[in-house]
């Protein structure tokens, strides 16, 4: 076949029909506070690591909800577990426990 130099790029669309709900349920069980996030962004705003690296708990939570596990993991990779987000979270989510469990549930090979 003649090669025209065109290709299909993969869809960037989030497909909620295809997300791994079993892993999500496991995470909810380990840290029920996950569901309470209202995406205010104060965790990301206060994040010490976030000023220099690509760390954002707010976005990581959104990615997990959308089934983009790898993107979520990479956003938490440089987290130092300092706990500033835990202090600031207006919903009182145990963010450190949440981050640890995201790494546990989604980091397993």
């Amino acid at each position: 076949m003649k090669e025209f130099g065109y290709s299909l790029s993969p869809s960037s669309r989030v497909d909620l029909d295809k997300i791994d709900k079993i892993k999500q349920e496991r995470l909810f069980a380990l840290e029920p506070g996950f569901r309470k996030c209202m995406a205010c962004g104060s965790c990301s705003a206060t994040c010490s690591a976030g000023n220099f690296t690509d760390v954002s708990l707010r976005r990581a939570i959104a990615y997990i909800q959308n089934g983009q596990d790898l993107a979520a993991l990479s956003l938490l990779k440089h987290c130092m577990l300092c706990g500033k987000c835990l202090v600031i979270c207006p919903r009182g989510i145990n963010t450190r426990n949440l981050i640890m469990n995201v790494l546990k549930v989604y980091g397993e090979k």
Partner: protein
Amino acid sequence: MNKEVLVIGGGPAGIECANSLISLGYKVFIVEKCSEPGGHLRKWDRLFPYGVSASDTLDKLLQKSGKAIFFYDTEVQTINQVDEKFVITLSDDTQLHVSSIVVATGFTLFPAAKKEEYGYGIYNGVITNADLEDGFKTHKKELFKANRVGFVHCVGSRDEKVCNRHCSKVCCVTAVKQACEYKDLNPDAEVYCFYMDLRMFGRGYEDLYLKAQNKYGIRFIRGRVSEVAEDVNGCLVVKAEDTLTSRPLKVTLDLLVLMSGMSKNDDNDKIADMLGIKTEEDGFLSLPEPTLNNCQTVTDGVFLAGSVTGPKTLPETLNEARAAALSVHKYLSR
């Protein structure tokens, strides 16, 4: 001055205003265009945020209105001001002579079919908040078998394309209430709410939102639904943007509930014309002193109550109805 007052509209605002006027010693006529009192409240099952029964609430309001004279299936035809009195002709040719008028004609539920992209009236799985409420009230079991359910906020609200730039303000908490109730009836259902902002302004609303997330696991997606289509299996494919991750999003659902907002009452222009008052750009009746006095009009002896001047919750409407009654009393005791 006789002690007779006309209340236009037999919904919660009209009924409660009549109740207060009766207790102040007035004779009250209520003109209602439907065949029963209660307005939209009659069609509802339970009320946010505490889940109080709508019919019990209406019954309690009606218990006190025994002395009011109701005209059902009737509309106001003409209003003439003779000195300081109003001469009113109703559609059944009855003539009334009253000293004051309270307009409590409420709102019209936004006709969801106008937002054709959401497929109301086209796809079977697309219903409105009012349809779902009717389903709760009449125990339509079929409606609660859907395992994937979506709620679309702001249908006919914050939308200049349908001439409703305003926020209807009660649909956010209504969606959250209905989502929780749906989960109570079908705990296996996955429930999504598509919102632009969640306006949980009232006491107990934020608690309900938290409960929806925490107890019921309802997923809130920030983004306005752009379109709905049906797939080969008859399921609904819903498209929106997840604005929190800036990515387009798709989900397949079995049931989609459109949160129709509060539009102006279709009769507002006619009523405003008869009474020498104005409507605003949004179609709701105008208030000359919107901060200091939300019952007053530019015409002496004419007062307003409830959602005829904009979207309101039931408690707000009832308070306004009482305030309007006091305004009438003050006007007639001057």
